[in-house]
């Protein structure tokens, strides 16, 4: 009986991550970046991040509204009320969210867990370094 239990746990344990999403931390996403002569940002994506590229990930943070009319949001490592613009925030502490279903009434600074496809933005200097496509609320 105990053996069966162990086997089950092991199977679930092995298969769990293989099916599912990878949980990413903000430290992982804090990639180095440089400033171009014109004053734009250019991120560098280290090779150890490659396994997360275009994968389904889970990330937690605070919602920041960027466009109230189009209901566009970003996910921030830091809460707005704990002084988003006082020094800690940088271009690599926020990610862009593209929701698959447009959410209604989201509240600023709401702490949420987001699931979606992690896309690396390597070319567009007017968008954030990471974009979570097909985003939805997780758990």
């Amino acid at each position: 009986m105990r053996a069966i239990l162990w086997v089950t746990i092991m199977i679930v344990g092995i298969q769990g991550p293989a099916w599912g999403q990878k949980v990413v931390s903000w430290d992982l996403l804090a990639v180095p970046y440089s400033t171009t002569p014109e004053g734009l940002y250019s991120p560098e994506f280290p090779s150890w991040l490659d396994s997360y590229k275009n994968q389904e990930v889970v990330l937690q943070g605070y919602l920041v509204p960027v466009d109230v009319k189009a209901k566009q949001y970003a996910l921030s490592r830091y809460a707005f009320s704990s002084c988003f613009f006082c020094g800690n925030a940088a271009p690599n502490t926020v990610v862009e969210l593209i929701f698959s279903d447009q959410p209604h009434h989201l509240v600023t600074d709401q702490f949420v867990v987001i699931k979606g496809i992690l896309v690396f933005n390597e070319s567009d200097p007017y968008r954030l370094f990471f974009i979570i496509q097909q985003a939805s609320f997780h758990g």
Partner: protein
Amino acid sequence: MKVWILQWKRKAASLIIVSILAFLTGLFIKAPRALEHYILKQWEESAAQVDVIIGYKGSPIQIVASTLYRLENPTGNIPESSYSFWRSHPLVELATPVALGDNVEGHPLVGTDSTYYQWFQMPLKIGRYPENSGEVIVDVDLANQLEIKVGSSLISAHGSDSRGESHDHPLTVVGIVEASRNVDKAALFTLPQTYWSLHHSAEHSYTSVMLKLKSKSAMLMLSNVINNRANEQGAFPVFIFGQLQKQWQPTIDLAGRWSWIIAFAVILLFIAYITSLFNAERNTIAFLQNHRRSRSWIFIQVFGNVLLLTFVGFVFAEWAIKVVIGVQPVLQEILVMLFTLITAVSLLWIKLKKS
């Protein structure tokens, strides 16, 4: 046909009540959304249009309130070099300078350039936009209120109150515009140069600079840049709006729930009143039944006007909310109205069938 006309004449009083009740029902069904719209929409409109406002170091709320809504005194002045810096920043698509601080008979005098009029949609009705220092344009409603027209001379004063110290140079009205935003309808516009000459300032300065960025996400990339600029404060209208929404949302949600309860009570009242009309029409119905008229014929002759007025009342409620408050109709609310109407009709029909 004769019965139908007679019904209108005979039941004038109850028909007026029906249309008013229908109108009220329509209004109450839409009340929750109208309330939310009323509290947040005005802020949302402007917050969606301007991405960043750069002002002198101080409270971001004060910068947004003074520049966008003219509700507060400005935090201070920023030099012309700030405007040049932001205008040429690669993330900025459009930069519009704003100078504030004076008023004409209590209405704020806004010093800005031609980009403002395009940004906030202020088409010209008569005359032209200001081209030289001392030239002023004004919204058509305010022009009527102050009884001024193209060519009129105005005297401006310091501060937001007409009792402030007056300036000796008169301003000349050169154009009448049609402003879209309510706050722009209550203001006068001139060039920033007017401010510099009125205040005899050698150094050119502005109150704030409004920025439209190349993307919405660019906002989040500017935090570092703004933090490194001396004496400048970046204010993000969308964040201020977010804070405002966060404060108001629980109240709106609560009021919304109560509105639905009240709306439901009004719907019940409305249905009850319509079905009570049946008793008043008992004799007419009995008379028509004796004349062997079909049931649907009787229904249309006796209650047709009630249903028509209900429909008119609902449509009028839709129209009123749309025109007065600007809330667009949504399917859900129309379905509730339709459901109310169908319930009333079915109840009348069942009663007619039973009699």
